[in-house]
């Protein structure tokens, strides 16, 4: 029923979008293509330009330069009310002087759709709130208001649905529950969703494609698994999960690229490297790192560092987080699952760490704070 209720989504394309505010550039020559029907997440820290990008797509801000295409049609200069785009606002922005059902019917009435109340009721049914239509928004809980906001936007069958941190005001448990529901609704209606968030877990959990935004541009875009497995920049490596990062000069490049990191040779596969000459940063995820109580034998396709001391152990339930201080190398984070396979070590124990060469990734830039000696 729900599928014939909402039209299909459309492609969204941003071409060289730029937004300048007095004194700073919020969005810097952004190119982006979101295919119809996709759940797309724009992820970034606050102030990275993601909300400004969303507001430009909605028509609430006009870009300083660039074009916005919706289903191939240029909508850059159209007003918000002329765009087939709807938004779920950050704090929902439900009209306090109207009942829930009138909120949902607002867009339908504006477009002079016949029988707006019937459609509004159907939309409320989809978010399981049909029994609360006569209430005022202030009488609903946060989660219920969130659903009303969703129904109010979706009932218009927009080509593109924009979600501006829609779950930000909910508590953790409700947020996780709404993530699942939101994803289910999107799959059911097949609309194009553009979801803006600063919560990496939320983005990875729901989206087909995630674009990580930083300082007005997109750092990297791709499927969540790909982004996690092969971050291309230091920002992505650190913003999405945690990473151990090592910077050194390339000493060997072929199918396997190696750097010299404090006299130790670290290697990565060339196809997992963005850069193969000069000063390069390599990274590895903490859960890919193992530790050993005795020095492991060289070679065997592993990078080895050590010996070092365990300086901190944190129990987080399914896994333990270890901090290991290796003299002359620095601090390394290791996650080990509590399934009895890793050796039991205590604070202060001497250990070596190692990981498979194919688990290393080479970044295109250096982490901020690295001095560049030329």
């Amino acid at each position, binding site marked *: 029923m729900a599928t014939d209720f909402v039209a299909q989504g459309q492609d969204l394309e941003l071409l060289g979008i730029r937004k300048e505010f007095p004194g700073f550039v919020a969005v810097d020559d952004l190119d982006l293509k979101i295919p119809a029907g996709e759940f797309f997440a724009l992820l970034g820290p606050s102030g990275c330009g993601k909300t400004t990008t969303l507001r430009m797509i*909605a*028509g*609430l801000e006009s870009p300083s330069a660039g074009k916005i295409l919706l289903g191939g049609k240029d909508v850059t200069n159209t*007003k*918000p*009310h002329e765009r087939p*785009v*709807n*938004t779920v*606002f*950050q*704090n929902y*922005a*439900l*009209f*306090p*002087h109207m009942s829930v059902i009138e909120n949902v019917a*607002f*867009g339908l009435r*504006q*477009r002079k759709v016949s029988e707006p109340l019937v459609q509004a009721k159907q939309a409320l049914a989809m978010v399981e709130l049909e029994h609360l239509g006569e209430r*005022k928004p*202030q*009488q609903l809980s946060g989660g219920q208001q969130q659903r009303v906001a969703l129904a*109010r*936007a979706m009932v*218009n069958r927009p080509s593109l649905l924009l979600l501006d941190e829609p779950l930000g005001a909910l508590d953790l448990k409700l947020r996780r529950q709404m993530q699942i529901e939101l994803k289910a609704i999107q799959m059911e209606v097949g609309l194009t969703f553009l979801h803006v968030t600063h919560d990496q877990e939320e983005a990875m959990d729901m989206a087909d494609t995630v674009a990580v935004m930083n300082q007005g541009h997109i750092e990297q875009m791709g499927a969540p698994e790909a982004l996690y497995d092969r971050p291309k920049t230091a920002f992505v490596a650190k913003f999405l999960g945690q990473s151990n990062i090592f910077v050194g000069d390339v000493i060997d490049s072929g199918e396997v690229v190696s750097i010299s990191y404090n006299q130790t040779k670290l290697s990565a596969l060339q196809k997992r490297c963005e850069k193969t000459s000069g000063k390069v940063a390599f990274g590895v995820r903490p859960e890919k790192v193992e530790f050993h109580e005795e020095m492991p034998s060289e070679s065997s396709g592993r990078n080895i560092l050590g010996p070092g001391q365990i300086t901190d152990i944190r129990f987080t339930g399914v896994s333990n987080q270890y901090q290991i201080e290796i003299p002359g190398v620095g601090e390394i984070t290791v996650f080990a699952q509590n399934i009895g396979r890793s050796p039991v070590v205590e604070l202060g124990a001497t250990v070596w760490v190692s990981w498979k060469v194919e688990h290393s990734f080479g970044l295109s830039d250096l982490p901020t704070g690295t001095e560049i000696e030329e």
Partner: protein
Amino acid sequence: MTRFSLGKYLLPTYVALTFLFLMIPIGYTFVFSFNDSIKSNIIWRGFTFDNWLDVCSQAEVCTAFSNSILIAVSATAVSTVLGTMIAIALVRYRFKFRSATNLLLFLPLATPEVVMGAGLAAQFLDFGWPKGLPTVIIAHVMFTLSFVVVTVKARVATLDPALEEAGRDLYANPAQVFMKVTLPLLLPGILAAAMLAFALSFDDFIITQFNSGAVDTFPKFVYTAAARGIPPEANVIGSFVFIVAIAIVITVQVRASLKRKKLAK
């Protein structure tokens, strides 16, 4: 222990006594509206409803009262519209000369009425405009405007801009957003401002005296009559206005408290 309980009852007692003091002239005016007076309404001569039942036996009182209503309604209409526009601009827009605008709006609030009254009268003399109903209304719009701006501005400041954006997002053009979202949400503030403007205009004496010429208003009538004694019909009108105003205030408060209770459920 005794000192503590003294402190506990001292303040409420003081507040109660002060309120009693504030109410004395109101009570006096109300009581003497029922005085069966013959010439002047100074000595109590017995209780009667006649003054209430036949207010217009003193034709001057009634004319003055209806003039006051006419002036207050006209001035309120104009100053509410102009003031609301300014209030929206002040909160929602950035523009040059902002400090100058704030100052221009503040000055009428900080100017003694006699200065505003005499200044406007001097200007009407310079222009050669005869004083009358139009000049009083002009004067009342002038001195109520800033009060409207202040009152509406407080309401605009609490209005979430995202609500208007949601309206635009949901296919309403700017005019429709204003009519369906902005205006209904500002309405309580605009109504409060209109009531305040009406009350200020209705009660104004000094500015009116300088700019009304031969037109009589209710406060002007009371001022003139004070020399020989104010007729009880004036007390009737004063008391009547008081009762209506208090009834409005109480209704508004009760409604607000019922709404709070309903929301709490």
